[in-house]
């Protein structure tokens, strides 16, 4: 939908899994939920997080697909693998830095969040963001998101790989990007 962006704020998640249950009601992949939901560490915390596909600007999954089955459309949505081409080799599953694609064994195909294409292509909001009771997943206009204390970012660093995405992650104010590099946390700094 024009003018709307997808924002993910794990700190708001209450672990109700409404997104997981609603996702499998969406027409493009009815019966299979495409949400990646985690209990961070239930023995230590009640923290949970739900993620959707980040629809990267330069999707790693598509780049590594040997069958040229994963396509990114002009609207920026990275689609699930094309049925005639996908060979379920799992290359994309290993390659995605966020761990999003799933292989559905009975279809021998990779499927993942496609931003509820059957809904967003006709002006409706994605199912997960519509039902999320805490709006940890939300699909709103940028002028609505500025009311929050957290700030959106869409730049991620995974080691040497810089990934920019269409979906935004809400981060504490002052953080411009999200980094997942162990050297950030080490006492001795690795060479650049």
């Amino acid at each position, binding site marked *: 939908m024009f003018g709307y962006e997808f924002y993910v704020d794990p700190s708001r998640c209450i672990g109700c899994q409404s997104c997981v249950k609603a996702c499998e009601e969406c027409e493009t992949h009815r019966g299979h939920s495409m949400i990646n939901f985690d209990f961070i560490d239930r023995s230590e915390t009640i923290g949970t997080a739900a993620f959707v596909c980040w629809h990267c600007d330069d999707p790693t999954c598509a780049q590594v697909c040997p069958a040229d089955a994963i396509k*990114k459309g*002009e609207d920026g949505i990275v689609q699930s693998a094309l049925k005639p081409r996908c060979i379920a080799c799992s290359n994309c599953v290993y390659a995605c830095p966020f761990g999003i694609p799933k292989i559905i064994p009975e279809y021998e195909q990779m499927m993942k969040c496609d931003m509820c294409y059957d809904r967003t292509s006709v002006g409706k909001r994605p199912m997960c963001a519509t039902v999320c009771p805490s709006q940890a997943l939300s699909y709103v206009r940028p002028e609505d998101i500025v009311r929050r204390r957290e700030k959106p970012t869409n730049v991620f660093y995974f080691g040497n790989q810089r990934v920019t995405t269409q979906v935004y992650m809400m981060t504490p104010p002052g953080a411009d990007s999200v980094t997942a590099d162990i050297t950030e946390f080490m006492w001795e700094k690795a060479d650049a």
Partner: protein
Amino acid sequence: MREHEPLWREEFSIFKANERYVSRRQLAKFLTLGSAAMFAGNLWILARSWLRKAPHYARRAVARAGEIPVGGVKLFQYPNPGEQCIMVRTAEDTYVAYSQKCTHLSCAVYYSREHDRLECPCHQGYFSILDGSVLQGPPTRPLPKVVLERQGDQLIAVKMEPEV
């Protein structure tokens, strides 16, 4: 998206916008329409040949009797300029004329006095001097004959047989 992309990345782009991708449907459509066009074209040609009126041949003097010796050859253009014909005086009072375009691949045929026949130098197609039928070689159709009429001193070309 990235600089210096190898060709294979360009050809098999992951971005739908850059895809030069012909779908099976598109190919099938193209073939069907192409075939249909060909078929229509053929029908048109067929129709054209059925509906064609008989061509009108003008009578024209093309030579004088005695202009060429016996066994001699005269080239003339009939029925229109650019359409070469060849006339041969086979006997004292016998003149024959044919289209000079070999019916195989349109080379110019010549008269062989030695063999008393019309020969095509390109692929050795030989035609009878009597009626233009094929004696040997690749041509499958006889040379069209120019029908001549004697009017006093003049040799008049009247029409072509078969009609061209």
